[in-house]
C-alpha cells in the first residue's frame, strides 16, 4: 500500500502507456486513467475525488479555445486545395520551367512542396498530390528511384515546419506561446531546410547527373512566352492563398485562426473557378474534417482529465525530478527531448505527442529558462524528421499509397516502367533525413536562427493571449476558471 502511495505518479504513467499500447482509443485511454487514478488517489487519501467535478468546466474551457479552431480550418482547406488541382498546375509549369536541366524536376518538386506547405501544411495532401503528378514523370524519364521517392517525401514533409503548419499551431497552444511568434521563429529554419534541399539537388546534378536526368526535348511542350505565362498563372493562386493565411496575420489583419478560415474560403473560390468543386467534394471534405478535428479535440479533453489527476498526485514534480537526472543541463535536456520526440514520432501521430508529451515536458523547459519558441521549433523539426524515417514514417506511407508497385506500360513513351519497391522509398529518405538532421543541429548550435527575428519586444496581441492548456491544474487553481466570460469560476 505504501509502495502504491509513494509511486503513484510513475504507476499512473505506466498504466497510461499500457492502455495506449493495448490499442484502446487514445482519448478514452487518457480519460480512463485520469478517472481511475482520481479514485485510487482518493482511496489512498492523496486527493479528494471532488476534483472530478471540475471536468465539465475543463471541457467548457477547451470549447472556448479559439486557437484550436485552426485545426478544422486548415484541414478543410488542405482537402479542398488538393481537390482543386492547384498542385498539378504548379508542378506542370515548374517542371517545364526547370525540366531542361539535370535535377530540374527535383527543383520543381522542392519549390512546389514549399509553396504547398506555405498554403496549408497538411503532409498527406502534399505527398499524395505531388506523388500522383510528379512520380510518373520522374519514373518515365528514368530518375533514380530512391532519389525520386526521397524528393517527394522530403519536400512533402516541409508542410510540418513551414508556417502555417498545424504542428506549429498546436505546439504553440500547448507550450503557451503565441502562434505568430511560432510562425516567425520557424520561418528562417524552414527556409534553411528548403535551401539545403535545393543545394543537395544541385550537388547531385553535378556529381551524378545520370540519377537526375533532364526532360527530353519533346517532353517540354511549352516554350518562350507561353511558358512564362503558364508559370505566372500557376503561381497566382498559391501566392494569393499565402497572403490570405500568412500575410494577413503578419500585417495584423487577422488572427492565425481567421487566417485559416480565409485560406479555406480562398481554396473554395479557387476550386469553384476551376470547376472542380462538386457537392460531393464539399461533403467529403467536411466529413473528413469533422472526424479529424473531433478525435483531436477529444484527445485534448482526455489529456486534460488525465492532467487533472496526474497533477493532483504530484506527477508534474515526479517528471521534473526525472529530468533532473539528465546530465548536460539545457543541452542535455534538449538532446534528450529531441531523441524522445523523434522516436515517439515513429509510432504515434504528432497530435498525441503534442497533447500527451508536451504538457509534461513543457513546464520543465520553462523552469530551465529555455527559450520556448526555440524549443518549439526544435520539436517541430524533430517531428518532420520522424515523418521521414523508415520504417514507420508517415510521409513514406503516404507515398507508398500512391506509388505504382507493379511494372507498367508507360502511355507516353510506350516503354516498360518498373514498379517502385518499398525499399526504394526507404533508401531514398536517408539523404533527406540527414539534411533534416543537419538543419536540426544548426538550430541547436545557433539558436539565433530562430530567435533572430524575435528580439523585438513581444507583440502583445489580444487574440493570442488566451487561456492555454498548461497540462492541468490542481482543481482549485483551474487554469480555465479565471476566464472572464466564465461565471463558474471557483
Amino acid at each position, binding site marked *: 500500500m505504501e509502495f502504491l502511495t509513494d509511486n503513484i505518479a510513475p504507476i499512473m504513467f505506466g498504466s497510461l502507456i499500457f492502455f*495506449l499500447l493495448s490499442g484502446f482509443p487514445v482519448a478514452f485511454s487518457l480519460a*480512463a486513467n485520469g478517472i481511475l487514478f482520481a479514485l485510487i488517489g482518493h482511496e489512498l487519501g492523496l486527493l479528494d475525488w471532488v476534483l472530478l467535478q471540475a471536468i465539465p468546466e475543463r471541457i467548457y474551457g477547451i470549447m472556448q479555445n479559439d486557437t484550436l479552431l485552426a485545426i478544422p480550418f486548415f484541414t478543410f482547406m488542405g482537402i479542398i486545395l488538393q481537390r482543386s488541382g492547384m498542385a498539378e498546375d504548379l508542378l506542370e509549369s515548374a517542371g517545364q520551367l526547370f525540366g531542361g536541366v539535370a535535377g530540374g524536376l527535383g527543383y520543381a518538386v522542392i519549390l512546389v512542396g514549399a509553396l504547398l506547405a506555405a498554403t496549408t501544411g497538411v503532409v498527406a495532401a502534399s505527398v499524395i*498530390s505531388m506523388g500522383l503528378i510528379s512520380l510518373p514523370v520522374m519514373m518515365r524519364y528514368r530518375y533514380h528511384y530512391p532519389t525520386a521517392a526521397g524528393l517527394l517525401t522530403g519536400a512533402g514533409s516541409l508542410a510540418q515546419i513551414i508556417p502555417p503548419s498545424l504542428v506549429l499551431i498546436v505546439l504553440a497552444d500547448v507550450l503557451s506561446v503565441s502562434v505568430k511568434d511560432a510562425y516567425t521563429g520557424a520561418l528562417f529554419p524552414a527556409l534553411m531546410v528548403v535551401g539545403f534541399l535545393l543545394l543537395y539537388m544541385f550537388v547531385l546534378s553535378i556529381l551524378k547527373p545520370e540519377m537526375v536526368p533532364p526532360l527530353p526535348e519533346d517532353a517540354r511542350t511549352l516554350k518562350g512566352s507561353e511558358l512564362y505565362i503558364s508559370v505566372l498563372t500557376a503561381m497566382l493562386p498559391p501566392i494569393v492563398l499565402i497572403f490570405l493565411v500568412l500575410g494577413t496575420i503578419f500585417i495584423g489583419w487577422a488572427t492565425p485562426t*481567421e487566417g485559416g478560415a480565409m485560406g479555406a474560403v480562398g481554396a473554395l473560390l479557387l476550386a469553384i473557378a476551376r470547376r472542380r468543386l462538386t457537392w460531393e467534394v464539399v461533403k467529403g471534405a467536411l466529413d*473528413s474534417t469533422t472526424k479529424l478535428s473531433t478525435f483531436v479535440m477529444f484527445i485534448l479533453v482526455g489529456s486534460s482529465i488525465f492532467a487533472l489527476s496526474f497533477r493532483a498526485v504530484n506527477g508534474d514534480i515526479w517528471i521534473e525530478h526525472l529530468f533532473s537526472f539528465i546530465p548536460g543541463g539545457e543541452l542535455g535536456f534538449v538532446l534528450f527531448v529531441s531523441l524522445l520526440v523523434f522516436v515517439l514520432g515513429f509510432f504515434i501521430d504528432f497530435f498525441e505527442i503534442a497533447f500527451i508529451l508536451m504538457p509534461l515536458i513543457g513546464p520543465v523547459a520553462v523552469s530551465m529558462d529555455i527559450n520556448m519558441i526555440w524549443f518549439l521549433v526544435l520539436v517541430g523539426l524533430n517531428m518532420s524528421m520522424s515523418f521521414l524515417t523508415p520504417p514507420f514514417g508517415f510521409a513514406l506511407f503516404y507515398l507508398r499509397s500512391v506509388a505504382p508497385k507493379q511494372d507498367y506500360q508507360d502511355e507516353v513513351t510506350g516503354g516498360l516502367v518498373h514498379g517502385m519497391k518499398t525499399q526504394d522509398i526507404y533508401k531514398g529518405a536517408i539523404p533527406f533525413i540527414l539534411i533534416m538532421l543537419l538543419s536540426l543541429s544548426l538550430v541547436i548550435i545557433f539558436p539565433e536562427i530562430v530567435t533572430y527575428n524575435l528580439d523585438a519586444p513581444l507583440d502583445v496581441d489580444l487574440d493570442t493571449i488566451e487561456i492555454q492548456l498548461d497540462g492541468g491544474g490542481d482543481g482549485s487553481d483551474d487554469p480555465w476558471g479565471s476566464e472572464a466570460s466564465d*461565471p463558474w469560476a471557483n
Partner: protein
Amino acid sequence: MNALLKFSDMIDGLNGLVGRYVKWLILAAVLVSAGNATSRYILNIASNAMLELQWYLFAAVFTLAAGYVLKVNEHVRIDVMSQRMSPRTRNWIDFWGFLLFVLPVTLYITLQSIPNLIETYQNQEVSANAGGLLRWPVRLMIPVGFGLLFIQALSELIKRWAYLKGLIEDPLAKGGHATVDMDDQKESV
C-alpha cells in the same frame, strides 16, 4: 441478443444522422471566421457575438460528432502492438474498456454538467463581452454530446459482444487511424 442488436442499430442510425448534418457547421464556422476578419478591416465593424459564434459552432461540431466518430471507429488508436493481436483480443479490449471506463465516465460527465446548464439557463447567463451571446446553448452541448457518446459506447459494447458471440462481422475491421481522407485519389492510380 437480437433486440439488443436492433437497439444498437437504432443508436448507430441516430449518431449517423447527427454526423451527416453537424459537419455543415464547420463550413458555417469557416464563413463566420473569414467574415469577421474581413468586416473588421474593410468595414471596420467588429461583433463580439460573431467572434463567439465561431467557437460555438466548432464546439458544437466536436461535442455532437463524438458519438458519430466513435461509430465509424475514427477515434485514433495506437496500433503498434494491437495490430499483432487477433481480432478477438482487440474486441475483448474494447469490450472491457467501454464497459469499465467509457460508459461510467461519459455518464458521469453528462450528469455532472447538467446542474451548470440549468443554472445558466435560469439566470439567462450572457457572455461578459459586450454584445456577447447567451451561454446556455453552448453549455447544452456538453450533456448532449456526452450523452450521444454514452449511447454510442453502449451500442459499441453490444457490437463487440455480438462479435465475440460470433453473431456479426468484426466491427473493428475499419478505421482507427489518423488519415486525411484522400481515397478517391488513391483509386485513380
